[in-house]
C-alpha cells in the first residue's frame, strides 16, 4: 500500500532555540533533496546529521541540520527526515510551508504513530500509549503512557491470556483424547484457574478509574454567583501550581478552562459564568455551557462571599452542589462576616468548608490540599504500570471479566466442559484485543475511524 508523505512540527511552538520538523513517507527523501543544499557532499547515510541550507529556489530560508533515517528501521518504518532548524515561529513556518508546497501533507494528530502501528512497528497497546503520551498533561500521565509503551500492560494482559490458554489446553486434552490414560481436569481445578485470572482482571479494572483521572485530568468546576472571587481563586490556584498548559484559549468568555498540577495529578480547572436563570440571550448560552460543565465535573468548588448574607441564588446553587463531590469556599473572610455559617452547614453538612481570603492570599494552600486528598481513594497506591487508562482497554477488560465470571458460573453448575469453554475462549479473545493479538473489525474501525486514507 502507498502512504503519502506527512510532515509535522515536533517541538513545541514557542521561542525555543531550535525547532524540529519531522517528515515521513514514500517521498520524504525526494522532497528534502529538492530543497536542501548541503555544505560539501551529502553522504546520504542512515541517521547521519548533515549541515546545510534549506533553499526556496535561490533564496536561503534557514541554516539547518538534517537527518535522514532509512525505512524500515525508523519509528514509522518509512523513510523519515528530521530537520533541525532555528526555533521561533517564522523559520519553522517558512520551512513547513515549503515542504507542503513540495508535496508533503500536514500530519494529523498521532498520525506518525498510526503509521508505526499500520506498518507493524508497534502493537496496539503501544500505539495507544504513544497517543496518550502526546496528550499527557503531567508527569504521572507521562509515566503511565511510557510504561504502557514499554509493553507493561501488554505483558500483564498476555500473562492472563496465557493462563487461560493453558487452562483451555488442559480441558481440550481430555476432550480430544478421551481414551488416553490422562486424568480429566476437575471442576474445582478449572474454578481455581479462572478465579486467579478473574482477580487479576479485577485489579486492573480497579485501577482504571484512577488511570482515567491521571490521563485526562480531574475536571474541577468553580461555581458561585458573580463577584464572589471565582476568577481570583482560579488565578491564585494556577499561580501556585507548576506546569500550566493552556488547552482551550479564551474562545468564549463563558467557560474558561485551564490545567494545573497538584501532586502530579492534572486538574482541569473550569471557571463558569454561573448557572442562574436569565432572560438575556447571550447570557443564556453561557449558562447552558456552564450547566454542561457542571454536570460533567468530577469535583465542584463552590465559592461564597463571606461579606454578604446568603442570597436566593446561593441557596439555589447549594441545591445543585448537594449531590456532587464538592468543596465549599467561604471567601473574602478579610471583610466583615455577614454570611450565616450555620445555614451553610445545615445545607451542605457533609462537605468540606474552607475559609479563604484570596485577596490577602489566605487559605489557598488549604484549597489545594483539599483537592488533592479528594482526588483518589486514599487506600490506593498509584503505580503507573498498574494503571489502565485507555477506554478501549477498559471495555475489553470489563468484557473479559464478564466472560470469566460466566465461565465460573458454568463451572460451579457443573455444565459440560465444552460450554465452559465458550466463555473462556471469548475471554481470551477480549484480552487479545488489548494486546492486538486478536483482530476484530470493529476494533479496527474504531481505531482507524478518523484516519484519512490518503488520495
Amino acid at each position: 500500500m502507498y502512504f503519502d508523505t506527512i510532515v509535522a512540527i515536533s517541538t513545541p511552538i514557542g521561542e525555543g532555540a531550535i525547532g524540529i520538523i519531522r517528515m515521513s513517507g514514500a517521498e520524504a527523501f525526494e522532497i528534502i533533496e529538492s530543497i536542501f543544499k548541503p555544505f560539501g557532499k551529502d553522504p546520504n547515510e542512515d541517521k547521519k546529521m548533515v549541515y546545510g541550507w534549506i533553499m526556496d529556489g535561490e533564496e536561503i530560508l534557514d541554516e539547518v541540520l538534517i537527518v535522514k533515517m532509512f525505512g524500515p528501521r525508523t519509528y514509522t518504518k518509512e523513510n523519515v527526515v528530521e530537520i533541525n532548524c532555528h526555533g521561533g515561529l517564522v523559520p519553522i513556518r517558512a520551512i513547513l510551508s515549503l515542504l507542503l508546497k513540495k508535496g508533503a501533507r500536514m500530519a494529523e494528530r498521532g498520525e506518525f504513530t498510526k503509521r508505526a502501528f499500520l506498518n507493524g512497528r508497534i502493537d496496539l497497546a503501544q500505539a495507544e500509549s504513544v497517543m496518550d503520551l502526546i496528550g499527557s498533561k503531567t508527569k504521572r500521565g507521562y509515566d503511565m503512557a511510557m510504561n504502557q509503551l514499554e509493553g507493561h500492560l501488554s505483558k500483564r494482559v498476555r500473562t492472563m491470556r496465557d493462563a487461560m490458554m493453558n487452562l483451555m489446553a488442559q480441558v481440550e486434552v481430555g476432550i480430544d483424547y478421551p481414551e488416553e490414560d490422562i486424568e480429566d481436569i476437575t471442576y474445582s481445578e478449572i474454578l481455581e484457574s479462572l478465579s486467579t485470572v478473574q482477580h487479576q482482571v479485577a485489579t486492573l479494572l480497579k485501577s482504571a478509574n484512577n488511570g482515567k483521572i491521571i490521563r485526562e485530568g480531574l475536571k474541577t468546576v468553580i461555581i458561585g454567583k458573580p463577584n464572589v472571587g471565582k476568577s481570583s481563586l482560579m488565578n491564585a490556584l494556577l499561580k501556585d501550581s507548576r506546569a500550566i498548559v493552556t488547552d482551550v484559549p479564551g474562545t468564549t468568555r463563558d467557560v474558561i478552562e485551564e490545567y494545573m498540577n497538584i501532586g502530579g495529578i492534572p486538574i482541569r480547572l473550569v471557571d463558569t459564568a454561573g448557572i442562574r436563570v436569565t432572560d438575556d440571550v447571550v447570557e443564556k448560552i453561557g449558562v447552558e455551557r456552564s450547566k454542561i460543565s457542571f454536570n460533567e465535573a468530577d469535583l465542584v468548588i463552590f465559592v461564597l462571599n463571606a461579606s454578604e448574607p446568603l442570597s436566593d441564588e446561593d441557596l439555589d446553587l447549594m441545591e445543585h452542589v448537594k449531590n456532587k463531590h464538592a468543596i465549599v469556599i467561604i471567601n473574602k473572610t478579610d471583610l466583615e462576616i455577614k454570611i450565616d455559617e450555620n445555614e451553610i452547614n445545615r445545607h451542605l453538612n457533609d462537605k468540606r468548608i474552607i475559609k479563604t481570603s484570596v485577596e490577602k492570599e489566605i487559605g489557598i494552600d488549604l484549597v489545594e490540599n483539599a483537592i488533592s486528598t479528594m482526588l483518589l481513594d486514599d487506600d490506593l497506591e498509584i503505580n503507573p504500570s498498574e494503571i489502565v487508562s485507555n477506554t478501549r482497554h477498559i471495555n475489553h477488560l470489563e468484557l473479559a471479566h464478564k466472560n470469566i465470571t460466566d465461565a465460573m458460573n458454568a463451572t460451579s453448575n457443573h455444565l459440560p466442559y465444552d460450554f465452559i469453554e465458550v466463555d473462556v475462549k471469548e475471554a481470551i479473545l477480549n484480552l487479545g484485543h488489548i494486546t492486538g493479538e486478536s483482530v476484530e473489525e470493529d476494533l479496527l474501525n474504531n481505531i482507524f475511524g478518523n484516519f484519512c486514507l490518503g488520495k
Partner: protein
Amino acid sequence: MVRTYHSGNYGCIVVGAGHAGCEAALASARMGVETLILSINLDSIAMMPCNPSIGGTGKGHLVKEIDALGGEMGLNIDKSFLQSKMLNQSKGPAVHSLRAQADKNKYHMEMKKVLENTDHLHIKQAEVVSLDIENDKIKGVLTATGAYYSAETVVLATGTYLGSKIYIGDAVLTSGPNGLAGSYALAENLKSQDFELRRFKTGTPARIDARTLDYDEMEVQWGDQDYELFSFMNDHVELDEMPCWLSYTNVGTHNIILNNMDKSSLFSGVIEGTGPRYCPSIETKIVRFKDKERHQLFIEPEGRDTNEMYVQGMSSSMSEDVQLAFMRSIPGLSRCEIMRPGYAIEYDCINPLHLKLSLEYQNIDGLFSAGQFNGSSGYEEAAAQGLIAGINAALKVQGKEPFILDRSEAYIGVLIDDLVTKGTDEPYRMMTSRAEYRLLLRQDNADLRLTQRGYEIGLVKENRITRFNTKIQMIEEEMKRIQALNLKESDLNPILTAMGIPTVTQSVRMGDLLKRPEIYYKDLETIDNTRPVHLTKDVIKQVEVTLKYEGYIKKQLQQVEKYKSLENKKLSADIDYYSIESLRLEARQKLDEIKPESIGQASRISGVSPADVSVLLVYLEQTRRRKSINE
C-alpha cells in the same frame, strides 16, 4: 518408452481409490459427470492400512458431515462395523464423538460394490505415471501401460503411495503400504513439473494372531449397548458385536525398547519425513515420557473372518525381532505371534498452501487434490477432502461456482481452511478443539447443517431429502407441542421428588422444564400423555439440545456473525501483495503464496499479524473509494 494411445475422455479422473478417491469419484459420478477412478490395485479400494476403526473425536464429526452431504463413508461403516461407542458421553453434546470398529475386508468389499454399481462411474486398475498439464490447465493422465485418458478435471488422491518407502528396523523397502506397489514414476513426473513435494511419515503397529492371546489377562472392552449409527439414513442395523481388549506396557517392555534403540529406524536418522505428534510410535512415547510407568494399548479385531488383531498404541518401526520381544512382555501377549510387523512409511505429499478452498490448484486449472497427498492423516480427513474435491471437480465440469463450507458451517470447512490457509508441518489430524464454533457443529445436527446444501448441488438424492424433510417437520411439531404442553404440578412433583429436585407450585410447560439441565425427556415419559409414538431418538436429541443450551448457542451464533463479517470481505486473487509496501515482508510472501479469498482467511495465516490485517483493510477501503470515485 511404451507406446501411448488415447483411451478415453472423462469429465473427471480420480487418481487413487483410497478413502479420498472413493468419495471424490462417487460424488462426481453421482452429480452426473462421467468419472473414471484409477487404482494401482483394485483389491485395495477403500483399504484401511492402519487402525480398524472409523470415527473418534473430531473424526466422527467429519463422517457424519460426509454422510449429511450425500457421501458414502457413514453408510459403508454402518454395513461393516463390529462394535460402536459414543466417546465423551460424560462431556457436552458438542464433543460427543462416534467411533466404530470396522471389519476391514467387509469395509473394502462393500465400498467396492458401491463403486461398481454407480452410474457414470468407471473403474480401472492402472498406475498413473504422468499428468498432462498444458498452459496451466490439466488435460489428462498417462498410465504405466501407455493409456492416455483426457479429462476436464483430475483429482489427485495418492495417499501414502507416492514415492513411498517402508522402514522396519534397518530394513528399508521400496514399497507402498501393506506390501502393495508404490507410485514412483508419478512422483518423479510431479517433481519435473515443479510441484513442491515434501516427505511426511506415519506408522502402524504389528498385527498379531488372535489364537496366541491370553484374554483373561486383559480387560474386555465392549461397545455401547444402545449404539448409534453413522448414517442419517439408517435407523437400526443388527449387530453381532465383537469385543476389543485393553492391556498395558510395563517397565520390562520399556527396557526392551530402550536397549534396542539402535535398531529403531526412527532414531537412527534414516527417516527424513515428519511424523504426527499426536500419533507417536511406542519408541517415541517411551523416549519422550520417561516418567510414565505404563502405556495403555487396545487389541482390536481386524475383521470377523480373520485372526489378525491390531495393537492400538504400539505403532513401531523397530526390527521385527524387537517388536516380538516387547510385545511378549505385555500381559495377555506373552505368547503372541506377529502376523504382520509394524512399520513406518514415508511418502511424498504437497504443500497444501497452494490450493484454493475448493481444493483446486491456484495455478493449474482443473487439477484438484485430496487426502494424505494434501498433508492430512486419517481415513476420515481424507474422505472429507475427497468429497469436496469431487464435488468441486463436478461443479467445474458443469460450469458452476465451487462449493465451499466455512469454519462456522462444518468441521470439513475447518479442516480445509486449516490446510489451505495455515498449512501443516506434520500429518494433520482433525480434533474438536480446532473448531471455533463447535457448539453449533455437533455431530447430531450435521444433517440439519448440510443436507439441504448437498441437495442443492445435486449430490443428495430424493430419498435422503425426503427423509430429512420429514425429520425437520417432526422436530418443529414436537417443539410446538412441548412448548404448549402444561404439566400439572400434581403429576410432576412425584417425579421431581424422586429425582431429588425441588418441587413446583403450579403447572409448568414441558418446554420450560426441559431447559433445566437435570431434566430429560425420559424422566417425563410417564406423565407426557400426548407424546407421539413415532418420536425418534434423533428428534428428541435436537429438541433437548436446542432447549437446554439455548443461551450458549445464541452466544456462539453471535461469534459466528462477527467471524462472517471478516469472511465476507473478499480479496481478489490478482492483488499484487508485493506492491503493498506497508505490509511486512513475511506477510507479503505468505499472502502472495496463499492468496487468501477473504480478509478473514488472511487473518488466520501464520506470519500475517493483526497489523498486516489492518493494512489490508485499509487497502480494501482505499481501493473501494478509488473505485467509487472513478465510477
